[in-house]
């Protein structure tokens, strides 16, 4: 049971600013996702939580207690590393019970905990093998079991399922969600896959160049991104961001003052009869179809349910679902959210 808070934490590696004045709160029992492109500071934040790195400035609190000067072994946080970091010279069993043996737990208790966790992760039959003889998915499970076997305040996972194939990834994702709910523990999860972040997290932070762009629930971030960056990071296909001059062509009126760019999610772009653009490409995906529409100099993407019949070159009219247009200023900051903040104060 633990909440985790960062207060203005900064971490430099030489001249590079890996984490830049970051503050956030992860509430107890949350499935919290740190989401961003590679090198955006996600992994460094995990290392700071673990105590493997020390912040250059700011404070880190676990359960309201400052942990800045507490070593990794005493922070009571477990971790699944991106490359799993199993101990190659030990069997899977020795890997799993390692945290308990190191903490000098009585043997009977260790055996009970190991069998409980191996049952949960279905690894009982492979425990005698060394990591080298396990498949990717099995190694995955052993690494997760090593983190789950003790009773830490929080679990951290650094993109632990990125090496699995798509189907196995989906399964593991669901399973992780289930395990997290069963355990009722805080889980901090790092990923660069927006689908993964959206589907499992109940809170997330979007990172860019060591800074946090926005935090909130996945729905909040998806519904009202505070910048073109966050808007573009979440959702596939990505949000259409077009110059505000396109507004009339898309029948969007009432743009707020200072609006420079217009953002429309592909599923909010309506395609109808008209002359606003021409179909450049049709991708039927089964449950939905992605259209690429050329409107003047801009290319827009629209997703429609089912498999509507459109042909390349066909002229179409475009409009946006009412209230679903996003407005951004020149710098890419959302205007709507700015207005909301004004209202709040």
């Amino acid at each position, binding site marked *: 049971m633990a909440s985790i808070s960062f207060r203005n934490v900064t971490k430099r590696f030489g001249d590079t600013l890996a984490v830049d004045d970051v503050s956030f709160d992860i509430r107890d029992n949350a499935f919290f996702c740190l989401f961003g492109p590679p090198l955006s500071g996600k992994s460094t934040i995990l290392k700071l939580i673990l105590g493997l790195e020390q912040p250059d400035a700011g404070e880190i609190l676990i359960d309201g207690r400052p942990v800045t000067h507490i070593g990794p072994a005493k922070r009571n946080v477990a971790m699944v590393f991106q490359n799993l970091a*199993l101990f190659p010279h030990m069997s899977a069993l020795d890997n799993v019970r390692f945290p308990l043996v190191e903490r000098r737990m009585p043997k009977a208790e260790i055996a009970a905990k190991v069998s409980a966790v191996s049952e949960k992760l279905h690894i009982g039959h492979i425990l005698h093998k060394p990591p080298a003889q396990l498949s990717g998915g099995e190694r995955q499970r052993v690494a997760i079991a090593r983190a789950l076997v003790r009773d830490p305040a929080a679990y951290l996972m650094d993109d632990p399922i990125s090496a699995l194939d798509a189907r196995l990834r989906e399964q593991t994702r669901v399973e992780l969600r289930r395990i997290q709910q069963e355990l009722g523990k805080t889980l901090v999860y790092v990923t660069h896959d927006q689908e993964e972040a959206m589907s499992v997290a109940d809170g997330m932070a979007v990172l860019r160049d060591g800074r946090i762009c926005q935090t909130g629930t996945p729905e909040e971030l998806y519904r009202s991104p505070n910048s073109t960056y966050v808007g573009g990071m979440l959702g596939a296909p990505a949000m259409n961001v077009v110059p505000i001059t396109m507004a009339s062509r898309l029948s969007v009126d009432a743009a707020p003052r200072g609006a420079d760019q217009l953002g429309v999610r592909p599923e909010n772009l309506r395609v109808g009869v008209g002359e606003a653009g021409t179909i450049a490409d049709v991708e039927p995906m089964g449950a939905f179809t992605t259209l690429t529409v050329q409107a003047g100099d801009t290319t827009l993407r629209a997703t429609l349910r089912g498999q509507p019949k459109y042909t390349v070159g066909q002229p179409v009219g475009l409009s946006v679902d009412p209230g679903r247009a996003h407005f951004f200023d020149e710098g890419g900051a959302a205007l709507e959210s700015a207005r909301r903040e004004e209202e709040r104060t």
Partner: protein
Amino acid sequence: MQRSLSFEIFRYTAIALFLALSLIPTLWMVSMAFKPIAEWQASGADLTWWPENPTLDNFRFIFGQSASELIVALERTAGRPILASLLSATFGTLIAMFAGTSAAYGLSRFGAGGNLPLALVQLRLFPPMAVMIPVMIMWAFLGMIDSWWGLALIYGIVTLPFAFWLMKTFFDDMPREIEDAALVEGCSRWRVFLRITLPMMRPALASSALFIFILNWSDYLIALLLTTRDWVTIPVYMASLSSSMTGQLYGAKAALGLIAAVPPVIMGIAIQKQLVRGLTFGALKE
């Protein structure tokens, strides 16, 4: 790719030729070691590849039993030099490996001793003689001339750079996450080193130690300068196997050479499994 038959023939011929070139001198030594004096002294048409009357006379001779045909009396026997070589090379290797591994780990993980790599090389920047004469004077002053421990100490010192550089490469290649994981799972820094790093480094330690042992084992110059009588090593002793009457005692030298080849070979076979085993295979996602 399908290789043509003629290419395969060429390939195996070339391999056989190179093998023969590199192995014939060694085989010649083995053969000579078991030849009686008449055979190893023979030349021209009398020369034989294999001993026609195999004998252990050469071995008996260097261990002090007079062999019938060799009327030369040896000043000393091979037993003590073999012991000297074993002690000095083994302890020299231990010193180099202990100091080199510690230094390499410190530098690789914590950046401790930034100038160390260059400082360690300076001993090898000069011609060996230029280094060894001052060392000889120092060792004489310290009363370590002609002792196996004096020799072991200098062996440890001159092979330390090799141990350091080899181990540093291995430490650099070891994934940091594995140690991080052990730290997070409750180990202290020392525990990580003992429980995780050293066991994972066993193949690296074994191959480095073998390399360094062979360097120490085959040294001639240092032993020549630092030992005089009681603790001369095998190579120095071997040089003394000649007399004004008989010239070079090739048979005796071959026998001693054969004995000298045994420890490295045994070590090599003993750690063969470690040498070929992958360092961290299976620990990480591929």
